[in-house]
């Protein structure tokens, strides 16, 4: 068992398939949720899997440099900014309409 595990380390394709699976799950949540906060959480899943992809490529394609990790840090910063703005918009929307259902907030002006 130990020998089998040690002789089958996860290759680059395994890591990429993992991040693709996480991204697809986030895509499913993005398309099926109706609550805006749930949609925001799905977007966070997708951003996280994209950052994981950057780190995987950094580790396996060019481990001598840190470019992929730097890009992952940028992705995390942009995700933080997106969450901050999204939270403000949702709170303002809730104050206006008393709902954060995206179907009932489809028109920009009422």
């Amino acid at each position, binding site marked *: *068992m*130990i020998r089998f*595990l*040690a002789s089958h380390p*996860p*290759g*680059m*394709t*395994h890591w*990429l*398939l*993992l991040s*693709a*699976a*996480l991204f697809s*799950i*986030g*895509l*499913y*949540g*993005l*398309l*099926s*949720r*109706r*609550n*805006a*906060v749930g949609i*925001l*959480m799905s977007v*966070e*899943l997708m951003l*996280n899997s994209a950052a994981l992809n950057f*780190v995987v*490529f*950094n*580790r*396996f*394609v060019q*481990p*001598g*440099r*840190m470019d992929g990790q*730097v890009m*992952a*840090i*940028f992705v*995390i*910063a942009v*995700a*933080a900014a997106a969450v*901050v*703005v999204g*939270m*403000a918009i*949702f*709170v*303002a929307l*809730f104050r206006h309409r008393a709902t*954060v259902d995206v179907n009932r907030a489809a028109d920009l002006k009422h």
Partner: protein
Amino acid sequence: MIAGAVHTALFYLLACAAIALALAVTGAQRLLRAAVCLMGVLAMSAGLYVLLGAEFLAGIQVLVYVGGIVVLIVFTIMLTRSADLLEDKPSFPRRLMAVAASVLFLLMTAGIFLTTDFRANPGALPPANEVLSIGRSLLDAGAEGFVLPFEVVSLLLLAAVLGSIVVARKTPPPDQPFTSGGDRPGEVRPDPTLSQNEAPDGGAR
């Protein structure tokens, strides 16, 4: 050999946990539960970063994502009373379209990943001091540095903070018309702690 076996086992454990928690994030009917599962997914991702040799990034992930973003999302859930309401199950056509789109995307990317030769280069060694190397490439103004995106990100964060304050502010000052979202200034109740004779005008401000 033991280390390699542990590495492989940890990868599959963390991957399975991350996928299961991600499914719970998208499927949970209670949004607070989904937020807790999201925290789990992000923590598993931090573990995967450690497995990939990116310890600094794992620390950043725990600090920013698990400690900051998830807390912000929980605040949003509380402030919009989404925690009280069970979300409706998505209707069948909606769910069918979502499953079809995500499965097609997964199949397409998996096909690309399985058929492409990515010129993996496992022989090269990572730099001795990773944090030093990350810092140098973040602030390097040369052709291989990232100082311009670094500054742009700092500007983006500043704009996000200011914009969210403006959008979510409760009472707009009367001379600033940019915030139409909050209560009207006239709707602010007079402060009951003020004395009666100055309540009509003095209390409203």
